C-alpha cells in the first residue's frame, strides 16, 4: 500500500441529447405498460465506481479526465461527468 489516500471516483456517462436512446424509450414504455403514471422521460447511461489513488506526478483529476476522454466515453455521442470523494478506510 502506498501512503497516499484512496478515493472513490464515480463517473456518469450519458448519450448526448441529440442521440436516440431506444433503450430508455423501451424502459419508459415498459413502465407505462406496468401501469405506473407520472413518468415523463427515461434516459439510460453508464455509471462507473472506480477506486483509485493519485500516482506519482499526476493528480487524480488528470488521470480520470484522460481515462474518460479516451476510454469511458465516446465523444462523438456521449458526455460524462464525475465526482471524486475520499474513500472510507
Amino acid at each position, binding site marked *: 500500500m502506498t501512503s497516499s489516500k484512496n478515493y472513490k471516483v464515480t463517473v456518469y456517462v450519458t448519450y448526448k441529447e441529440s442521440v*436516440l436512446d*431506444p*433503450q430508455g424509450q423501451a424502459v419508459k414504455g415498459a413502465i407505462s405498460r406496468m401501469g405506473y403514471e407520472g413518468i415523463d422521460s427515461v434516459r439510460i447511461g453508464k455509471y462507473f465506481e472506480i477506486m483509485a489513488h493519485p500516482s506519482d506526478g499526476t493528480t487524480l483529476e488528470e488521470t480520470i479526465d484522460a481515462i474518460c476522454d479516451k476510454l469511458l466515453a465516446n465523444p462523438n455521442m456521449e458526455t460524462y461527468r464525475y465526482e471524486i470523494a475520499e474513500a472510507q478506510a
Partner: protein
Amino acid sequence: MSPRFAVIVFPGSNCDKDLLWGIKNIAGMNAEFVRHDATDLSGFDAVLIPGGFSYGDYLRCGAIARFSPVMNEVRRFADEGKPVFGTCNGFQILCEAGLLPGALLRNTSLRFVCETAQIEVANNATRFTSKYDPDQLLRLPVAHAEGRYTVTAEELEQLKANNQIAFRYAKGHNPNGSVDDIAGVTNKAGNVLGMMPHPERAVETLLGSDDGLPFFASLIDSLAA
C-alpha cells in the same frame, strides 16, 4: 508476387478465421493472422479487421480494442494510403479509433439481428467496390446488436458530398436503424472502409451467397494496379 493480407486478431475476435478463409482459401491470396499486440505491419499490402466481440465488446463495441498496440500501426498504414477494411466489429473498431467517422449504436429493435440483408452498392468507384455494378443489389449476411450507424447531420452531408457512402441497406430492409440506411462507409481518402455486413460470409454458394466475392476481387485488383 501476390499481395499479402494481414488479418488482425484481437482477444475476442471471432470472425478472424472466416476472413482468413475467405481471402486465403477462396480468393487464393497470401494472408496471415497478426496479433493485437504486434507492432509491425511492414510487408503487408492490406489490413483486414474481422468481426467478433473484441474484449467482449464490454464497455462499447470496439472501445477497448482501439487501444491495442497494433492499432497504432493500422493508423500509420492507413495514413500511408494503404487499404484497411473492417467488417462488423472491425467497423466498430475503426469508428472508435477515429479512422472512420460516426459511431455504431444499439439497434433500434434492441435485439441482435442475424439475417441475409439486401444491400445496395452506393458507390462502386472505390477500391473495394469496383467490381460491382452501380446500384447492384447484394445479399450479404449481417449479425450484430450494435449496428445503428450514427453521424451528425453535418457529417452526413459531408459523407454524401465526398461520396463516402459505399453500401446502403435496400429500402425497407434496414435491420438496425442506421441513418440514411447506411451499411458501409469509407474515409475521405477512400482507402479505409468499414461495413456492418459480412462479405466474408458470402464467398461460397454452398453457404447461400457468393455476393461477397467481387468485394475481395475489387480490393485485390486495386493492389495490382
